[in-house]
């Protein structure tokens, strides 16, 4: 069968096209131009008519909900399921997606710039969607359909389980009349087939869904090719299933039974039960699990892993609840490991198969702390009848989806956005569409081939020591301090570097910061950020206004520093400062404007989607417009509730250092904004190697981009990379533009989305 195809098999929508990788891409490229046609086509497609007769709506949503998609031996079943899934995804997605797409198309036609979507008029071009072998079709379609709808040509590299459905999907599209080459499916057994596709210079964006190890290998293989890559690592995520004492315990136990012992699970679960109801829950679990059948395992090796994990847990004092004694071979009975603690190996990384670790907690606050104390952040299921507790817990859990009194429910209308090591992109919902669009003003990462970099000692060479020539004692250059934790300080190493004027003379000295300075700054930022995030938007807005005010009072100092540093005329410098002041005021005004919504769902109940702060951001600032770019990025980050560690450009650090005075005189809390000067590569390396930093915005060298792409998968960070050398040649980011699209893009980069589901009868 197709599944077992060991050689590279290529399926292009136009029948009979079997060409090499390179050709596929050129086919795609030729198609991008005709994509507006596709948009209209999608709008006019009549999806329900392709649905097999006799399937009620409930069946469809059930299928989509639990993603009961398996590649059956029987192609017939496969066709059926596949049709259902893609139809219902499209069904509900079409409502959302096409509304926005229509708006986009319409606004383009009328030249209307008022709609926010209109500033994102560019599709990315060619998008590669890669998934790992055991990834479900739902996660694949969650990327493919929005990518198509936004006008991109898509190359799908499906894994083993999704190869067949993906091919059938392509056939469906073909029957629906999609232009040839817009959707391509490349199957094969090669481990890094995806990387080969992405290494093509004409691919513009790639996105991966699946397991962490494969993702890591892929990221390393494509680092330096100039293709931005995003990850959704839901498959290796461990999610908490929290039962509070105010829960309907019977239903909660039902939920556990339903999700934990399935043959195929999308996430790993850890059961957390409040102390006061622990005995009741355990008793119900025993009762319910009694007589459950053994579950087939994926492979024989899984059995070994389970046996080892269970033995280890037992040695640590765990008691087992098992439906029947385990036999031999690739079958295992549903098992709950009671009496474990978070430090036990089987809680840190639960074994595959129907094994569920159980830990207990005292208070509801501790339950949330327990759920949050994990490197993953995909989803959580919380069970309580107490509305206040449910909403409070949902708010404080650091995960992408919170299911209140339900589990594993997904709908394309709501964003699915992994936190921490679970992912760095937003799929689904209106928010998820943005990953497949490019603001027309924003330059994309230039294509290139990777340079040879020694990743292990990147940025470890100390900056060169310089003794100034022709030292003139009458004009001693000023020494600036950096800004860490609200304090002016020297570099931890005690070293400094000289700042040169455009003419080459020494203007000033600034600290030569390094790893330890970044560490101190992040410690400070980490402490102050939660309080800042919890402040009301109005209070944040006041702080930002005070910053703008403070900048206004020191406009002369900053004008002079910009002028002496960059050598531009006084008027131009003045203009930059003026723009910076109004940019900060803009951000102050925006603090309370960006909010989520309550999407309409096919099921009854409520759903919320809301933007949340990322945490601590690292920014390596661009050379161009040193002050304006700084305040634009700083404003976006802190307006949305983040803390920030900034590295001024190596070439023009003075305006940023002068800006420290402005920060000190404002009522921005100390530690929220940190400014560290020093070697760019050295600080880049330090930021990349600090797990607390959730996102890095980088302007700099091609090698720097490559290093970040290579090293920021484990632990995962959100990257926004800009290759400055290229941008200087072409028109770079236009910081002076008053187009709202710049701010729109910036604030979207500074937030993550959380969706909360509260089903009701």
């Amino acid at each position, binding site marked *: 069968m197709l599944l077992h195809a060991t050689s590279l098999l290529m399926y292009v929508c136009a029948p009979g096209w079997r060409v090499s990788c390179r050709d596929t891409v050129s086919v795609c490229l030729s198609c991008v131009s005709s994509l507006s046609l596709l948009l209209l086509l999608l709008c006019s497609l009549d999806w329900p008519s392709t649905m097999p007769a006799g399937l009620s709506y409930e069946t469809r949503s059930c299928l989509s909900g639990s993603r009961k998609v398996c590649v059956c031996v029987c192609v017939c079943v496969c066709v059926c399921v596949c049709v259902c899934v893609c139809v219902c995804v499209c069904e509900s997605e079409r409502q959302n997606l096409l509304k926005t797409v229509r708006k986009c198309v319409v606004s383009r036609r009328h030249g209307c710039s008022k709609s926010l979507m209109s500033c994102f008029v560019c599709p990315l071009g060619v998008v590669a969607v890669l998934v790992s072998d055991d990834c479900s079709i739902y996660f694949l379609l969650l990327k493919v359909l929005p990518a198509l709808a936004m006008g991109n040509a898509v190359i799908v590299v499906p894994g083993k389980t999704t190869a067949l459905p993906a091919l059938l999907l392509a056939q469906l599209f073909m029957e629906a009349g999609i232009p040839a080459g817009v959707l391509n499916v490349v199957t094969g057994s090669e481990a890094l087939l995806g990387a080969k596709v992405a290494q093509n210079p004409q691919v513009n964006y790639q996105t991966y869904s699946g397991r962490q190890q494969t993702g890591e290998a892929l990221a390393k293989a494509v680092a330096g090719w100039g293709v931005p890559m995003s990850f959704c690592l839901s498959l290796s995520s461990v999610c908490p299933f929290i039962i509070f004492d105010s829960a309907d315990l019977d239903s909660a136990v039902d939920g556990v039974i339903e999700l934990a012992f399935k043959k195929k699970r999308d996430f790993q679960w850890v059961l957390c039960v409040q102390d006061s109801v*622990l005995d009741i829950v355990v008793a119900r679990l025993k009762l319910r699990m009694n007589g459950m059948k053994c579950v087939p395992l994926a492979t024989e090796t899984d059995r070994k892993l389970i046996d080892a994990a269970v033995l280890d847990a037992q*040695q640590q004092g765990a008691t087992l609840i098992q439906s029947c004694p385990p036999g031999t071979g690739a079958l295992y009975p549903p098992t709950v490991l009671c009496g474990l603690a*978070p*430090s036990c190996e089987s809680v840190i990384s639960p074994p595959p198969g129907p094994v569920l670790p159980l*830990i207990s907690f005292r208070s509801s606050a501790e339950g949330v702390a327990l759920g949050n*104390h994990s490197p993953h952040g995909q989803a959580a299921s919380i069970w309580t009848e107490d509305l206040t507790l449910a909403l409070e817990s949902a708010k404080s859990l650091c995960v992408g989806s919170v299911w209140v009194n339900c589990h594993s429910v997904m709908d394309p209308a709501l964003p699915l956005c992994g936190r921490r090591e679970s992912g760095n992109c937003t799929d689904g919902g209106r928010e998820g569409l943005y990953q497949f669009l490019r603001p027309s003003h924003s330059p994309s990462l230039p294509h290139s081939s990777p340079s040879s970099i020694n990743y292990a000692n990147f940025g470890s060479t100390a900056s060169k020591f310089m003794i100034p020539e022709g030292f003139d004692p009458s004009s001693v250059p000023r020494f600036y301090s950096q800004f860490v934790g609200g304090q002016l300080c020297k570099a931890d190493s005690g070293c400094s570097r000289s700042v040169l004027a455009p003419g080459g003379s020494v203007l000033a000295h600034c600290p030569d910061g390094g790893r330890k300075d970044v*560490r101190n700054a992040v410690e400070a930022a980490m402490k102050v950020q939660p309080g800042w995030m919890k402040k009301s938007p109005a209070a944040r807005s006041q702080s930002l206004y005070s910053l703008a005010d403070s900048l206004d009072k020191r406009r002369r100092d900053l004008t002079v520093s910009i002028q002496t540093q960059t050598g531009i005329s006084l008027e131009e410098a003045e203009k930059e400062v003026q723009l910076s002041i109004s940019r900060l005021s803009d951000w102050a005004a925006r603090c309370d404007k960006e909010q989520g919504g309550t999407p309409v769902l096919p099921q009854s109940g409520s759903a919320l989607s809301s933007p949340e702060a990322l945490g601590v951001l690292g920014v390596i600032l661009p050379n161009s417009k040193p002050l304006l770019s700084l305040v634009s990025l700083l404003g976006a980050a802190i307006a949305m509730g983040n803390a920030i560690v900034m590295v001024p450009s190596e070439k023009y650090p003075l305006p940023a250092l002068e800006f420290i005075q402005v920060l000190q005189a404002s009522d921005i809390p100390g530690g929220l904004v940190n400014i560290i000067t020093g070697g760019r590569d050295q600080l880049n390396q330090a930021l990349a190697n600090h*797990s*607390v930093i959730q996102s890095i915005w980088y302007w700099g060298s091609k090698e720097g981009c490559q290093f970040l792409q290579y090293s920021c998968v484990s632990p995962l960070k959100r990257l926004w990379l800009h290759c400055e050398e290229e941008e200087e040649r072409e028109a770079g980011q236009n910081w002076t533009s008053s187009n709202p699209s710049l701010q729109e893009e910036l604030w979207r980069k500074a937030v993550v989305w959380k969706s909360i589901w509260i089903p009701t009868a």
Partner: protein
Amino acid sequence: NHSHLSGTDPFYLEWVLKVRVNTQAVLKRAQQIQGGKVAKKQWQAAWLLKAVTCIDLTTLAGDDTPSNVHRLCMKATQPIRHDLLKSMDMHDKGITTAAVCVYPSRVADAVKSLKAANSSLPVASVATGFPAGQTPLKTRLEEVQMAVEDGATEIDIVINRTLALTGQWRALYDEIRQFREACGDAHMKTILAVGELGTFTNVYKASLVSMMAGSDFIKTSTGKESVNATYPVAIVMVRAIRDYCLRTGYKVGFKPAGGIRTAQESLVWLTLMKEELGDEWLSPHLFRLGASSLLADIERQIYHYVTGRYPAYHELPMA
């Protein structure tokens, strides 16, 4: 049988009364020790692992329940994530903390958890009206007995500060002797509550009296006073230990507790012990660190040593 001194009465009042401590000299020595260089790289990692094996992992809170005591015990038996230990080739060296330390009512829970996990880790219990010691002698003695009955093999008693501050050293000695008897075979650590003793001289005297009365360890503080384990006060106490060892040949252990939170501080404590008392006091049978949040920071530093990255707190398992 637990008295270290020969003769019928092991209490030497004269010795106690003769004690003099010069404050500024002690402060200077403390600064010297803090200012010294600490080990780096693999040597630092080794010292940190040593510090882990000396920790009395502690929870002394009003909201302690069996479930968080259980978590604490599990963390004590596997203090550092297994994969980190493995990459240092230390996973099979049996690295655990020295003990877990709980309130008397939680001893039974801790003993049960550790027994289920087949661990021989000792359970320490605070007793004698911890932290203030302001309860009748009878109940304080009963508290010790009950903790021992529940399975505590180490008892951290607090001294009666009233007696120490009013100079009733003999009475203090007698009280501690009674605790010693009540402890039976269990190790006894005597908490001096240095923050409430006023002067270094008083600290020295209280240290001597506690050791004469048969303490196996002397411990700085309960962690509930405003001033806890500081380096100068520790120098005074370890000098008393040295004095006692020279005079009697008996080695008494030292346990700083309260406010020790960072890996860096734990390294300074180890340095202090090495400098003042020698290598013999660098093992859990003569040195303990009473701490609750210290372990998390040490684990982070070890993570940094192994991977080259600074981890976030959520990446390492919660205690």
